[in-house]
């Protein structure tokens, strides 16, 4: 290392020389996945500007134009590119808005899971002993309830106490809470495992010898070194959360039909599948599959890159 120059490298230079970028440039699947993901996210975020109509605006909806097929099928109306659903909403606009809801819930729920899971995982791993035993048993109990059960119980309680109308108003934060609560043990377990590995390393001992308080050791020293696995599971968890939300909505426990997510859109079309209006279900279904697929592919790539065992060995 005698070749060190005195000029420190900037973050950009570090990134440019990193293994992350190198392997990304060499992986066509990752590139395509990222491109598709960015297009989908951008379309969802920009939905109010991109969408030809506002599906939330009742004045724009024409019930007479319901169940129109997409443009390549006979009997379509060129104003509705992807056709319309049973209530006469423009399907393209509804999908864009729906993807937005799905993504918000997906990312929100993962943020919630991560916040809970990382804190519990850090505490359990670093403090060990009784705290560890208690938190991990709590995680086991949590995992033994499926997301659906939590959703049914919380949703039913909420509806019973506050009524269906209030539920519709607070559906998004409620779903974030439900999916976030149901899946935090994934994070807690992963974080705990990497904390246990990091805790044995000498830099943690060095920090303790220095006299640093536990909180600082946990968050300043150990947490940054457990970020790689957190990133990797986050991608998978975002995909899972979107699917969970879709499943809940499909069962009628999620987003109401007035503010459809991809899942509730699929559900609303499902009733008309038999009568020939396949597009109401199939097109949002396809969008959901593609969205989840590219997130998972990106997650796979990230796991391969960030797994030190794989690239050092």
């Amino acid at each position, binding site marked *: *290392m*005698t*070749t060190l120059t005195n000029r420190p490298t900037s973050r950009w230079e570090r990134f440019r020389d990193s293994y992350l970028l*190198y392997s990304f440039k060499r992986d066509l699947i990752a590139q395509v996945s990222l491109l598709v993901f960015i297009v989908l996210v951008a379309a969802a975020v920009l939905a109010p500007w991109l969408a030809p109509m506002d599906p939330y605006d009742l004045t724009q909806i024409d019930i007479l134009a319901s169940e129109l097929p997409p443009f390549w099928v006979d009997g379509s109306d060129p104003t509705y590119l992807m056709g319309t659903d049973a209530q006469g909403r423009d399907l393209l606009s509804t999908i864009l808005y729906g993807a937005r809801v799905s993504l918000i819930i997906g990312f929100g729920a993962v943020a919630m899971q991560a916040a809970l899971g990382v804190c519990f995982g850090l505490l359990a791993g670093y403090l060990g002993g009784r705290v560890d035993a208690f938190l991990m048993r709590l995680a086991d109990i949590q995992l033994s309830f499926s997301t659906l059960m939590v959703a049914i119980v919380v949703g039913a309680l909420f509806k019973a106490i506050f009524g269906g109308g209030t539920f519709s108003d607070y559906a998004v934060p409620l779903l974030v809470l439900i999916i976030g609560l149901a899946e935090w043990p994934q994070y807690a377990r992963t974080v705990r495992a990497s904390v246990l590995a990091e805790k044995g390393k000498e830099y943690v001992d060095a920090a303790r010898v220095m006299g640093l308080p536990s909180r600082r050791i946990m968050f300043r020293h150990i947490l940054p070194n457990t970020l790689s696995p957190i990133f990797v599971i986050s991608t998978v968890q975002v995909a899972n959360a979107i699917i969970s939300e879709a499943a809940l909505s499909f069962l009628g426990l999620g987003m109401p039909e007035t503010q459809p997510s991809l899942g509730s859109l699929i559900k609303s079309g499902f009733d008309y599948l038999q009568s020939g209006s396949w597009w109401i279900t199939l097109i949002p279904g396809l969008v959901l599959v593609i969205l989840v697929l590219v997130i998972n592919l990106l997650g796979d790539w990230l796991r391969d890159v960030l797994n030190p065992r794989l690239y050092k060995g």
Partner: protein
Amino acid sequence: MSLLDVNHLDVRFALRGGDVRALRDVCFSLDRGERLGIVGESGAGKSVAAFSLLNLIAKPGYIAGGSIRFDDQELIGLSDRKLRKVRGHRMSMIFQDPMMTLNPVLTIGEQMLECLKAHRRISSREARSISLNKLQQVQIPSPEARLDQYPHELSGGMRQRVIIAIALLLDPDIIIADEPTTALDVTIQAEIMALLLELCEKHNVGLILITHDLGVVSQVTQRMLVMYAGRVIEQGPTREIINDPQHPYTQGLINALPQMATPGSRLNQIPGSMPSLSNLPSGCAFHPRCTFVERADGSRRQACHDQVPEFVTSGNCQAACHMVAEMIESERIPAEEQD
């Protein structure tokens, strides 16, 4: 004709920044029953040298050139099937970490049996008696019981003895030992080294001992190579190199040992550290750390900066150093003038 002849061996690793040359122009030979030490610090390429002898270099590494002749047979370019007859059979290897070599889910006996049966057509009973015999040779207490034990039931020293027994199973001509005692304690290390030496002498087995420990090399080997940054920089009889090293790096390595300085005084350190193989200095790879680049009269020896030094012979030793070459040259001229 030596048993093993390595000539101009060139090993590279294909990395994303381009090829890294892990070994350059490595030449050495080993006679039957001879014990050779390969000494160097981490990154010097000594383990790569050992692995390349058996063509065990993992991707992205590959042998880019040179020749390895073993018993009049060229090993480079040999098919895997033919190579397997040499590997494990006529040349066997002992690794640093016994747990890496022993399969944790098979008993010692099963592993020895497997190894024997892969190379010879023998009955299980014969194989067991050979295994038992080898375990006795490595002085393991109650060898019969050990055959049915799993590796984790043995201590580190015992495991390394088992590894040596496995290495001896097929009566090889050469044993390659890569840092065989680094993971062990001093007292166990001494016993394992003594055992290895005794067995090699008794069965006339050649030994290539790869280590960073000059003390071990001086106790066990007859000849030694010193490696630096992928090159052999000095070779010769062990005793002569230890007593009178020619290359400045070898001198530095020996003088840096605490036992060479009076207790409490400053140690003679070599400044700097080993360059990375992907970014070697020009000329002699050691020149940025070498104190002899400047001649005694204060002038700089430019060759150290520009030219890779060739081997020069001094007595029984060979060193790749411009300073040594210059010294030999200056000694020879007055001698010729007197004639």
